[in-house]
């Protein structure tokens, strides 16, 4: 319990730190948004008016405190470009991205478990070779390229699946597939290695000596013990998925926070960039927290606190 609270506390601190860092970084280094909005020939008064609108006429600390106050009321400021509260723009996009990320994760896990365990059981067989091949592709081929190829083949040539946007569940297929490919190699490797290691453990032989059915041994004993290292990898994958989602969204024109971030970037829309970064980073921290806690739940040693 204490561990739980301390981790939550840590997460909160980290999120707050990120918020501050992003805020300060952007306000201090970025160009003046008022000048960008206003034309080159605008008079000073117009610029000043914009400044007042954006709140950039005040000092950095005042801006920070305004921001923080707004934060307690659930506001992340207003977007320059869209003239709307940042939260209204970011949250729907976040939801889409989460959908994408989650489906990619599930897809990858399914493949990893199936391919990984089959490879472990027949180490030299065609499945193992296939898995290695897939792993190499996943590691070498950049995500955006895989995405482009997928669009090329399945969308343009074959016309089976939509190439972009989020119009239906079909739209999730290609991007999830591309994303899944980025995390699949690591998961497969870990799973194959763990399953193979577990297969030679004494308790497996004991289980067979007690007449336990093979599939039971497999699912209950081997997979269970192999899932711990897998969970660690999955924890890592969260970050990769988040970064990958950004890229995938650009390639597939998927309306998530990734494409939103780039739009905001090109438009020099700092509140939006800031809001997206904060939201994305916080999601990342929270997801990692969740995975850590899940790990303690599954691993009885950590939970019960016995001798390791």
């Amino acid at each position, binding site marked *: 319990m204490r561990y739980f609270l301390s981790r939550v506390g840590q997460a909160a601190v980290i999120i707050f730190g990120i918020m501050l860092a992003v805020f300060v970084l952007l306000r201090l280094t970025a160009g003046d948004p008022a000048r960008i909005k206003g034309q080159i020939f605008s008079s000073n008064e117009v610029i000043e008016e914009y400044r007042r609108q954006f709140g950039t006429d005040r000092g950095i600390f005042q801006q920070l405190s305004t921001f923080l106050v707004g934060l307690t009321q659930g506001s992340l400021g207003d977007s320059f470009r869209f003239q709307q509260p940042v939260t209204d723009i970011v949250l729907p996009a976040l939801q889409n991205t989460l959908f994408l990320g989650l489906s990619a994760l599930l897809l990858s896990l399914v493949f990893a478990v199936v391919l990984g365990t089959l490879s472990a059981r027949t180490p030299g067989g065609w499945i193992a070779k296939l898995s290695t091949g897939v792993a190499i592709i996943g590691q070498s081929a950049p995500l955006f390229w895989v995405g482009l190829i997928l669009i090329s083949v399945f969308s343009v040539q074959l016309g089976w699946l939509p190439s972009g946007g989020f119009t239906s569940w079909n739209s999730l297929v290609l991007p999830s597939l591309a994303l899944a490919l980025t995390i699949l190699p690591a998961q497969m490797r870990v799973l194959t290695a763990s399953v193979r290691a577990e297969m030679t453990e*004494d*308790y497996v032989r*004991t289980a067979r*000596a007690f*007449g336990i059915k093979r599939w039971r041994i497999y699912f209950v004993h081997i997979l269970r*013990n192999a899932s711990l290292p897998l969970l660690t990898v999955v924890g890592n994958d969260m970050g990769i998925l988040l970064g990958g989602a950004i890229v995938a969204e650009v390639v597939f024109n998927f309306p998530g926070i990734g494409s939103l971030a780039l739009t905001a970037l090109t438009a020099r829309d700092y509140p939006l960039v800031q809001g997206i970064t904060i939201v994305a980073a916080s999601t990342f921290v929270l997801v990692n927290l969740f995975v850590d806690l899940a790990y303690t739940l599954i691993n009885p040693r950590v939970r*019960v606190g*016995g*001798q390791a």
Partner: protein
Amino acid sequence: MNRNQASEAISSDAEPAGDLLVVEGLTIELENSPGASPIVQDMSFRVAAGEVVGLVGESGSGKSLIGLALLNLLPDGVIITSGKILANGLDVLTADEETLRKMRGATLATVFQDPGAALNNTRTVRQHLAGVLQAHGRFSRQEVRERSLQALNSVGFPNPAARCRSYPFQLSGGLRQRVAIAMALINNPKVLIADEPTTSLDVSVQKGILELVRRRTIENHLGCLFVSHDLGVISEVADRVIVMYAGQKVEEGPALSVLTRPQHPYTVGLIASAPTMSSNLANPLRPIPGTIPPVGEAPSGCAFQTRCPQLTKELCSPLDPGWTIDPDDSSHRWFCYRQPKLKSRRKES
């Protein structure tokens, strides 16, 4: 083998009443090593109900593989090339996989050497017992619970109701081994194979486990094969003793006879080399000179010929002795030309 054939096998091969485990001519070899000597050579023995048969031998004697062979669970690369194994009448070597599976843990149970490794650390004691039960029948949760508690009680596991939810890593070695024994006994097996169950335990804990094994064997009318390299352990637990060397049986007989009046030079050396309370500089340890031949390189005939201190050209030709039987006790015999030292201790010529 289908059900009918199996029951035929049982009735036609029915052994003289009481022999729960029959092993005849068991030979275990390395799979891809032509020309290498077998790991276990022509091994035969029987275990009757209610008796503990101790199998003694040092590392490399092949004794550990026998336990696995009885379950037909030899590791890759090791195969049984001949012999017959009957467990409670069932032919182990010709049975199909499903029949074997049903037999393991139910008719033929094993206790392994290292309970820490043999138990799964992500499952509780309860779950282990339940797993073994449910592999061999359908039981309600109530029944599972009752039988588990009963099994734990029968092995002297303290406070089972509360502690059955513990994980193996929370228990001491002795307790873990008791859990392992409970798992072995929960399905009321006929044959129990105990493979060095006390080797990884403290001496103080050993005694309890040995008593437990003996008691359970007698009360449940089990046939128990107890494998160990430790003479002290064997002397405490076994009714009959079989001594193995380099894959061969070299001596067998009632425990008292073999241990107090050993006849085969190897057994003699083994007993003489055991440290005693009076071992000291004046009374040093007397190891057997030489080392056991590496697996696959044992000489044919008498395997001990390379180290035997009593080897003589006159007596030991050819190097393939045959069995000498103790005139005082026909169940005590050894694979050597040496005649028994008579009880009157007259020096033998």
